[in-house]
């Protein structure tokens, strides 16, 4: 042993956490995620067959923001993300409050609400396509039992996007709920006792204790479901394939359609638009939401 003394020991401590531990992860992530991301910035400016490309400047982007069926995708993505995210916040919070209260069969209820999160999205999509069938579907059967006529959920352009969003909420609200449960459980009971002592009723306790103190959970649910909503593809593809017309097309389904059609440059442009969209919405939002929390 030549490395006696303090210096040698410190070197040994540093050597215990070698940089090469990063290597396998860095290679896989760098090659298969980062490199294609940077490459997409270039290929979005080209007409591309995978074997050769010609540089066409911003023409793809111009097309993306002028062709109606591509613009639809952009607008629908925003609507879909906001609707699903907002619903998950409201319903997740209500379910979180219910499932942390002294309710009957609490464990069973939690399990039932959470289970759809783990089920195949394609399976859920197919099942709800059947349940939403305009004439044979169970949902419209129930509506008919009340003497009313239910709409053609997935084939009527006015309802299609919201119907898919509903299924997304059905499948995802369990995750929002468990995040809220974790948040609400961590609120110290003294706050509620103090509020009760001051004569606050249930609504006031919710407004002044639960809502502000469950804020980290709210931030998490908003951010998480916005990311998921903006990137959403598989449920829409399993239920409507973007139809009727382009009324349920989102950016992610446009990317797939352009890829299938062989417009690789345009498809990649869609990808760049999507990650600019995600970054432009999620990064500032998480910054603002997290900062306010510190001030409060």
């Amino acid at each position, binding site marked *: 042993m030549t490395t006696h003394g303090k210096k040698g020991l410190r070197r040994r401590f540093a050597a215990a956490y070698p940089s090469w531990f990063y290597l396998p992860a860095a290679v896989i992530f760098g090659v298969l995620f980062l490199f294609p991301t940077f490459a997409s910035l270039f290929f979005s400016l080209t007409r591309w067959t995978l074997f050769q490309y010609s540089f066409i400047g911003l023409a793809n982007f111009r097309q993306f923001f002028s062709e109606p069926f591509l613009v639809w995708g952009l607008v629908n993505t925003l609507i879909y993300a906001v609707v699903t995210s907002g619903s998950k916040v409201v319903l997740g919070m209500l379910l979180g409050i219910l499932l942390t209260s002294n309710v009957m069969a609490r464990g069973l209820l939690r399990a039932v609400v959470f289970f759809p999160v783990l089920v195949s999205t394609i399976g859920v999509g197919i*099942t709800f396509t059947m349940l939403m069938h305009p004439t044979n579907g169970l949902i419209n059967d129930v509506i008919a039992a009340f003497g009313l006529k239910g709409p053609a959920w997935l084939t009527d352009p006015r309802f299609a996007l919201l119907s898919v969003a509903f299924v997304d909420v059905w499948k995802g609200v369990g995750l929002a709920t468990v995040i809220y449960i974790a948040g609400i459980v961590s609120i110290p009971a003294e706050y509620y006792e103090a509020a009760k002592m001051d004569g606050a009723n249930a609504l006031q306790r919710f407004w002044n204790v639960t809502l502000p103190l469950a804020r980290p959970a709210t931030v*998490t649910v908003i951010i998480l479901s916005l990311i998921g909503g903006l990137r959403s593809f598989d449920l829409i593809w399993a239920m409507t394939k973007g139809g009727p017309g382009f009324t349920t097309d989102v950016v992610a389904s446009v990317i797939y359609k352009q890829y299938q059609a062989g417009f690789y440059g345009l498809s990649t442009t869609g990808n760049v638009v999507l990650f600019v969209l995600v970054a432009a919405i999620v990064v500032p939002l998480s910054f603002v939401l997290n900062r306010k929390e510190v001030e409060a």
Partner: protein
Amino acid sequence: MTARKLRYYATGILSLAIAFVVFVVPFLFIVVNALKDKPEASRLHFTWPTETHFWDNLAAVVQARDYMLITAFVNSIVLTVVAVAGLVVFGAMVGFVLQRRPSRWNGLINFMVLAGLIMPPAVVPTIWLLQWLGLFKTLSGLILIEIAYSLSFSVLLFRAFIATIPRELDEAAILEGAGPFTLFFRIVLPLLKPVAVTVIVVQSVAIFNDFTNPLYYLPGAKNATVQLTLFNFQSMFNTSYNLLFMNILIITIPPLIMFLFFNRQIVEGMTAGAVKG
């Protein structure tokens, strides 16, 4: 007191009834229709089958397209097991060094981890790259893709857990002469069992259920995964709803088993990963 009791039972029963209709009925709908014969299932009614055809339907689904479902199950299981193994080992290695050794690279690495969590992958350039590497339409390619896309989540969970393991343990081992390899694989990794279980169950459900990545990176009949097979059956069985529902039922069983055994870890993992993300 009795009024309170009454309210307890009223809200309890009401909640259970609503939860049953909203969350349980769709699953029962899958089950009853998976048991029916073709004409009865085509009516899409929520009724108990007049005659149960469990075995017939099961056999028909399994044999369809030359035992496609068996191939798909084998592919999906290989994909899930290998990708999750990679995620655990590589994610833990990164989480370990990232947590233990502060360096000026940490800021960049944390940024990369967040980027991996938020950013949608660039699809066509990835296909182009995979073709160039000879990995397009191969299971190995898809395994590497799944690892790349889920590494961030795995790193976050491991890093958070490693922060709870006292550094003195490392120091003792180093003084005993343990090298980095021994320290990590012999001493630290076994202690990570609880968080490793969480990563394993959460990621295996996610990768088993993944549809988009196999759709892009593993097209072709002989490569099918269970989700792709189900999606293709949708158009193939569009008159045999009984078989379609049987297929859904079959591929719901693995996540159901995971849920029954690892409910707590799944919920913990998803909330922890979420809160840190």
